[in-house]
């Protein structure tokens, strides 16, 4: 199973890898049989909740620190050593703040919206394989489930925007719906090649489709194919927009509509939206990892002894760091640029990427010398050439050059 280590060490690494799975089995085994299936599900749910909430708290701290560094300031550094206890302070602040509801608001919808935001996001984690044998449920149509529950988030944003009876809220809600519908299409279509070639909608099966090694050492992740690489990039762009992260944070746009649908929320309800957004970002990153980056699998054969969940969270950390970096670097898009990017640029490219994946699949029997290179060039150019042409055409007539400052010195 594990290459390059003596058998005794291999057993130890195996045990370490399956530590949490065995622990759960042991715990469930102590109970009467009638309870076992329920308790098993409850333990999985509690583990997901605990792990990802902790990750959320850490990410908020790291993001504030990281953005601070990018903007040449310190970030939070007063609560605890290096500001490590800041999330706890934030939590206490959120819990003790007054829960304000505008007098003109629709009280019921205003109350339900944060719940509708958080619950579907948490449900989406059920199908993600976090490690070997570590998916809470393995649905036959897991990917479809993920997108189905993800679709409920749009409704939550609309409910928040409409029920607040505030024109900024309503504007934010409208922007959010337009953006999320537009980017849902490229997001779902960018996962199409993976489903085509793995032949399954189950995320566990898709992870298994990336097993094995090419050349004896490099993992067979989808990202190491031309369509996988293009797919990952397109997926990441669409996922950033879908989770309303900068540079696609128009629905919140603090400087334009002072936080959009969140204007009239305070205290723990605001915190729920905040949690929902971050958990949504983790979930969509986890999906990207599962589809393109081999899920919990190690990149090279010599590193297979590292426990599978460690790989998963390492990759997730990479995604989170990328999102923070993007937020600190890129300015917000304009509404029409946002729509153009989705409909004129991403959509044709994701469709071509599906064709490229089919080509990759049907050229697999090629055996002549340099076949691999030829396949890469052929399938890569199918996406790469339209990328250049589309980019040129969309930028035609626009003067893209160094920024000129007229007001500032």
């Amino acid at each position, binding site marked *: 199973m594990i290459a390059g280590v003596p058998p005794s060490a291999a057993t130890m690494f195996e045990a370490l890898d399956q530590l949490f799975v065995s622990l759960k089995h042991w715990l469930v085994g102590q109970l009467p049989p009638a309870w076992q299936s329920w308790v098993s599900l409850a333990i999985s749910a509690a583990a997901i909740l605990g792990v990802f909430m902790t990750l959320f708290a850490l990410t908020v701290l790291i993001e504030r620190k990281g953005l601070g560094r990018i903007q040449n300031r310190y970030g939070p550094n007063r609560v605890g050593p290096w500001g490590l206890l800041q999330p706890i302070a934030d939590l206490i602040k959120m819990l003790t703040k007054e829960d304000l509801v505008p007098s003109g608001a629709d009280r019921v919808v205003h109350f339900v919206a944060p719940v509708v935001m958080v619950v579907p996001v948490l449900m989406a984690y059920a199908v993600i394989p976090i490690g070997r044998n570590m998916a809470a449920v393995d649905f036959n149509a897991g990917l479809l489930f993920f997108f189905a529950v993800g679709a409920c988030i749009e409704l939550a944003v609309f409910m928040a925007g409409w029920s607040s009876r505030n024109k900024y809220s309503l504007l934010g809600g409208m922007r959010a719906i337009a953006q999320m*519908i537009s980017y849902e299409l490229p997001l779902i279509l960018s996962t199409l090649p993976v489903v085509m070639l793995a032949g399954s909608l189950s995320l566990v099966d898709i992870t298994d489709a990336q097993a094995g090694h090419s050349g004896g050492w490099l993992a067979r992740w989808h990202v190491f194919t031309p369509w996988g690489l293009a797919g990952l990039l397109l997926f990441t762009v669409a996922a950033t927009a879908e989770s309303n992260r900068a540079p696609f944070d128009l629905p919140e746009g603090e400087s334009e509509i002072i936080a959009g649908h969140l204007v009239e929320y305070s205290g723990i309800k605001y915190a729920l939206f905040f949690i929902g957004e971050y958990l949504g970002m983790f979930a969509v990153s986890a999906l990207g990892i599962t589809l393109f980056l081999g899920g919990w699998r190690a990149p090279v054969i010599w590193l297979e002894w590292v426990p599978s969940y460690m790989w998963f969270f390492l990759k997730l950390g990479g995604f989170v760091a990328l999102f923070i970096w993007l937020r600190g670097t890129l300015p917000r898009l304009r509404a029409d640029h946002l729509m153009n990017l989705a409909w004129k640029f991403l959509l044709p490219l994701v469709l071509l990427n599906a064709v490229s994946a089919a080509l990759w699949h049907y050229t697999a029997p090629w055996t002549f010398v340099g076949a691999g290179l030829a396949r890469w060039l052929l399938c890569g150019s199918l996406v790469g050439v339209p990328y250049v042409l589309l980019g040129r055409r969309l930028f035609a007539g626009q003067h893209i050059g160094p920024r000129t400052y007229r007001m500032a010195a």
Partner: protein
Amino acid sequence: MDIAFLITAAAILAGAAGAMAARSVVHCALCGVVAFASLAVAFLQLRAEFVGFAQLLVYVGAVAILIVVALLLTRNFEATHEALSFRPWALGLAIALLVSGAVVSAILGSGLGVGAPPSAPPPTVKAIGDLLMTRYVVALEAMGVLLTVALIGAALVALRENGPGRPAKPGEQGSVAGRLEE
């Protein structure tokens, strides 16, 4: 009948009734969402995973959003109506009975064993996909063409509003509405 089904059925009916009875149009739409989502749960209880998830994705993710956006783009959608009720009661009742009678008779006459437990294992997504790509491929393609025509038509309608040949400006009603027709 088990309790889970009764709860789901109650939620479906409550959502549908709310969608009829609510004063505010947005409340009607949101009650409709409750009915759609409960229906998805009912499909899941019948072990029809694919249909249940597709119901959630299409009806909550697309149809409900479409309704809501159409409301947002309508003038004075906030105005609540005193009575949305349908005046000729007898006519409404007759239509309701006719439709439900047709549906019930179709189900009873379909040869599905009423009350018989399902014997075959639930079809996998793969089996559904195979059937869609072989036996029902014409229907699938026809549906695809229909949706494409609708999409192009919506884009054309959106273009017209700003005069021929000129692309709609961002944030204007036509442009957003056209894009959401998909």
